[in-house]
């Protein structure tokens, strides 16, 4: 059985023009998915529906076969999915260590994780805004990995970093799939990142199509 599933999902902002039309797709554990498409085609909206940040106009989003509305959107976000955003979205009055353990019950895992992701002992305790963009994104990734959820939803995770860092982040996401068995769904413009995915979907004109690899 699929871990996550979109079942005939349609979405409209105003009830007239459909952004997503009757989309059905399945996402499995231990796989990395990339959703690509032109700007404004609804990629982030699709990710928001998967993450329970919004609800579809019609159709349903299933997690382990259960409609996430039944699970509860907050509970779904807390227990089942983690987000990584293009602009990192870290809380500015917390240290990297505190940001990483924000959604984690196991605080003691945060330091090893951040160290593993390349932050030094002093960096993890300084103001998070004093880190470079790449370091901030690593903190965001650490937060997602530490949350203990089965699905990671990443919205343009390499959008604000240089090529080298982009490569590194792609590697980290792939690693999390292989080592922890997570399902990673990435919305991206980057062909390099998409190339690392097991499955690539193209979203265009509200229709989601699986691409042949």
């Amino acid at each position, binding site marked *: 059985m699929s871990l996550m599933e979109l079942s005939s999902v349609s979405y409209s902002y105003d009830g007239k023009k459909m952004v997503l039309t009757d989309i059905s797709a399945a996402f499995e554990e231990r796989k990395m998915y990339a959703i690509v498409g032109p700007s404004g085609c609804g990629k982030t*909206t699709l990710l928001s529906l998967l993450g329970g*940040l919004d609800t579809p106009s019609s159709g349903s989003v299933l997690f382990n076969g259960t409609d996430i509305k039944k699970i509860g959107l*907050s509970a779904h976000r807390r227990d089942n999915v983690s*987000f990584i955003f293009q*602009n990192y*979205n870290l*809380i500015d*009055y917390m240290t990297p260590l505190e940001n990483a353990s*924000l959604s984690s019950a196991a605080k003691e895992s945060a330091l090893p994780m951040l160290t593993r992701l390349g932050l030094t002992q002093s960096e993890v305790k300084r103001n998070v805004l004093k880190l470079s963009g790449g370091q901030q994104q690593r903190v965001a990734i650490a937060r997602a990995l530490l949350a203990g959820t089965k699905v990671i939803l990443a919205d343009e995770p390499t959008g604000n970093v240089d090529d080298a860092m982009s490569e590194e982040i792609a590697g980290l996401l792939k690693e999390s799939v292989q080592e922890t068995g997570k399902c990673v769904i990435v919305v991206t413009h980057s062909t390099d990142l998409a190339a690392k995915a097991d499955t690539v979907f193209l979203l265009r004109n509200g229709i989601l199509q699986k691409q042949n690899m």
Partner: protein
Amino acid sequence: MSSFRRAFLYLKRKRIKTIILFFLILVLATLSLSALALKDAIETAQLNVRQVLGGYFTVEANMTDSDKWLINEYGGKYTGEMPTVDLAESVAENLDGLLGYNLYDTFKTRVSKEPGSYDLPFIICGSNQFDAEFVSDARSSVGSDPDSTDDYNISFGAHLCTDSAFDYYFMSGGLTLVEGRHIKMEETGVAIIGEEVAKLNGLKVGDTVYLRDPNLYLDSDEEPVYAPVTIVGLFKVNGRSNCEFSTDAVENNIFTTQNTLQTYSVYKTGSYTKIHFYAEDPDELEEMAETVSALPQFKDDGDFIVSLDNKEILAVKKPLENIHRLVMLLIVLILMIGAVILWLILSSRIKERIREAGILLSIGKGKGDILLQYILEITAVTLVACAVSIFSGGVIAKTAANTMLEDTITNVLEEQQPPQTSSSQSIFTYVIPDDLQNPDIVGNTASTQPLTEISVSIQASDVLLLFIAALLLAWLAVFIASIPLFRLKPREILSKMS
């Protein structure tokens, strides 16, 4: 991470914002608390003014019934019922908020240090041109002839009371007990005398003097009864008696009980001239007097009548109520303006924190959890600010009371003060009207001060009220300021973040 931990981190790391919020709430709390303290002080001052003004109601015999008068060639004598202790007790039973009462009567008495010795001299304070000469002549004879049986032929005033603490002179501030204690009707052989008379005669509290009937002279045939009386208190006169002769002066009065009088005097009436009733709050005197007037003994042509004296209270009541109302308005304004400012600042802060809210929502924190964090933050700042305001509020309130209120209340009282004449009932003169044996005291210096002294202190109830009001306002402000944010879907919040 719990809401408590996040709130703690926010307050700790966003120091400047926390300090600004702290000072804002501190200012509001200080103003509110000082206004509350001023309100209490004004209420206390109002009560003090009313009490110092000495309002009371009087119960006395209804002497308008001509059938109760016995007329002969020497004049008229009232034969109707006079006020008694039983009457006073039956009236008191029907009244709530009664401070106390005193029945009084006045007689003359002779006072000597030993049985059979000369009358004690008393002080000269009459306004009549012959008064000083009259008393001095009598004084000069003392000791000049040890075998002389002449005495002054002048008497002290015996002021009989059932409870000297509630005697008009003491209640109105005309007299102050400076040493010893007051006397009550159950006691026998006790007296309070003037400190000047005591000094003149080398007497002190604990000494014994002897009283005898004023009509029994040392050389009379009838053997007088000498009643030993212990001096239990000394009084000071705040001003001077307004009387022609020193024999009538309050300075030369001896306060004692009817029990004492009855051990040596031929007068054994058991009744009194008048009863003065005092209320805990003189503002209630009118209602009390109405209640008493409705009692059977007072109806229509009853044996007794009630008269009310609260003119001074009524004169200052309205202006003082206006000051009180002004402070109440100030409190309401501070709270309203404070609530609006707090709401505006918190709205702006919460809008600034939309990113944080979006992040927290994206990791599965509920809106209630985020709201709880905001409430914990404002609660912590409010509690500290309110605690500090206990000190700052006290200082501000005392300063305001010293600089503004005392002057204002003094002005109010002075405006209400009628022209000073010997017979006027101004707040600075104490008079028992229509009572020739009880002279008034003029030029009072002691009792004017408490009228304008404002004692300001922060009450525990005010602090409790402040904490409750401040927390409720702060929580309400956070709640209202959060509504626009929490009406958005998480995705809309995240869109705004972008």
